[in-house]
């Protein structure tokens, strides 16, 4: 439906037993742990210097339309500089929206890995469900999305080089996106 997404068709899927798939899957689970714990400096270590982290605004369009994300508008369209600033802000003593911190849980599932034309890079799809709870009397919030990642091997380690997050809601039911997906 959406033309803005990377297209897995034509790429060679890796079997679930393939060591490269297992490694990619482990990367996502390890990353999830860091995001849940808000260990953002460690998370930044898992990103390549040329990271592109993109979360377009999802929109409701007719099935016949050739798009289902907002033309030109995203929630995140970040590079390493802006991601580092976001992390640095959470590390100050004055980022009120996360102090006290949210209780976060990133559930990662539906992981599929694909070979790309570049042997150092894997294309990995996953689904993410984020649970976020703040304080004691607010309803918790969920965010559901699909992710399309490029994982690149650098110095023997997989790193996240590109992430496209397609949210499942057009109107975000969360007070802000002071989180990462």
């Amino acid at each position: 439906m959406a033309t803005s997404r990377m297209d897995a068709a034509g790429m060679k899927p890796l079997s679930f037993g393939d060591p490269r798939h297992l490694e990619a899957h482990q990367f996502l689970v390890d990353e999830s742990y860091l995001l849940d714990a808000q260990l953002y400096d460690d998370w930044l270590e898992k990103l390549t210097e040329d990271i592109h982290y993109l979360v377009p605004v999802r929109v409701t369009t007719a099935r016949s339309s050739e798009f289902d994300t907002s033309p030109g508008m995203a929630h995140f369209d970040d590079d390493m500089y802006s991601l580092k600033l976001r992390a640095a802000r959470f590390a100050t003593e004055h980022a009120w929206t996360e102090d006290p911190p949210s209780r976060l849980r990133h559930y990662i599932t539906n992981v599929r890995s694909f070979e790309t034309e570049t042997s150092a890079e894997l294309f990995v799809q996953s689904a993410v469900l984020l649970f976020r709870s703040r304080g004691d009397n607010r309803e918790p919030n969920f965010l559901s999305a699909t992710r399309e990642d490029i994982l690149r091997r650098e110095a023997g380690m997989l790193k996240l080089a590109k992430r496209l997050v397609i949210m499942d809601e057009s109107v975000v039911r969360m007070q802000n996106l002071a989180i990462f997906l």
Partner: protein
Amino acid sequence: MNDLSLMLADVRRGMIPAYVYNDEEVFKLEKEHIFERSWIFLAHESEIPAPGDYVVRRILEDNFIVARDEAGEVRVMFNMCLHRGMQICRAELGNASHFRCSYHGWSYRNDGKLVGLPFHNEAYGGEDGFTKIGQSLLPAPSVATFNGLIFVNLDPNAQPFLEFLGDFAFYLDFYTKQSGDGVEVRGPQRWRVKSNWKIGAENAAGDSYHTPQTHRSVVEIGLFREPTGAKRKEGALYWCDKGGGTTYKLPPGTFRERLRYVGYSDEMIDRMESSWSLEQQRLIGDDGFMISAATLFPTFSLVHNWPKVDANADDDEVVPFITMRVWQPISATETEILSWFIVDKNATEEFKEASYKGYLMCFGSTGMFEQDDVENWVSITSLAGGSMARRLLLNSRMGLTSTDKPLNKPLADFHGPGLAYVGYGEFNQRALLKEWADCIEKPLDETVQLVMGEKVVASDSKGGGK
């Protein structure tokens, strides 16, 4: 709700009953007295540049298609089929020559005209049973555009928009007319916060006092060089007719030097020079004030800011951005924020990208400023629903003495219209809530009822006021 006249009197003297931020009865009054007869921003013309382009927007529960018809005219139509009331257009944006109802297949041209009615002869005996000719989707009662901004008022006898806007237009130009060709917008981002709509509107209207505390973190990380306490209190607060805003005092310099200081290039400044009046230019050049946040009553706010966007930039290299938003009420305790990025249509692609990046870093759903704002507003709204909040009057009298005199005199040589003060003060929040109180108090008019395109005046559908 406590006694209405007492509540309004408290609001007018700047003592705000805390419960007005979380009260079903207050919200019911707001629906009828404010949202059914105020000018509400729906869309910008640049969102629907080509014939057939449309977006779908709301005023509370009322859903409208904002479309550009084949003749290029902007139409705002109630998104409800004349037959059984189904929502005609169920996408939020796209391009269509016609809208066809999914229930029984009635179809409408993108100017609203009813053109298709299946089995018209068999079902109605043709025109005799149902007059198709001349029928169209219900048009929005009152529509106006200004600098490409499309406003709608549910009151067919609304005060004309330009009259309502008054001299606030002077300030709106800074955000939405940086060149003769105007601006283009991206967005909106849409998200819901468990906050009463008034809190955001008040904040943008005049709360320069919150910046040093709420937004301390963005200064600490070097994203923004301005919002320290000292800088903010040097800015002027202005209120003019139905809107007001905050400004920053810039270092000494000319009109051009000061615009350069916030990151505009000479070619952009050239265009501003030719689109803004001499008085508008003097506000920057002579008075040294740069517009920052603003609100036009009731729910339309704007922000102009100049963060450091580039990793390799010098300390002083900033890029300005502009955003506008609507605080769309969902209930007494919930608001949907629709937030757009605005940029001069004639700016270079390079500037547009950098400015957009600045917007995403600072405002909107992920903005590092805005993230902390909503945390506060959600908390206020939640507490305002309790019984203790009914006993508490929040002090919104900053800038006034006990005898209602301003602590500092209004600026005598300010080049903008309205009344302006330098220093911290809640002049604008009080002005906004005074406008709110006036609306709440104003009796309701008779409601015009529309039956299949025919106007029938109902004599007492709302009791004819109080």
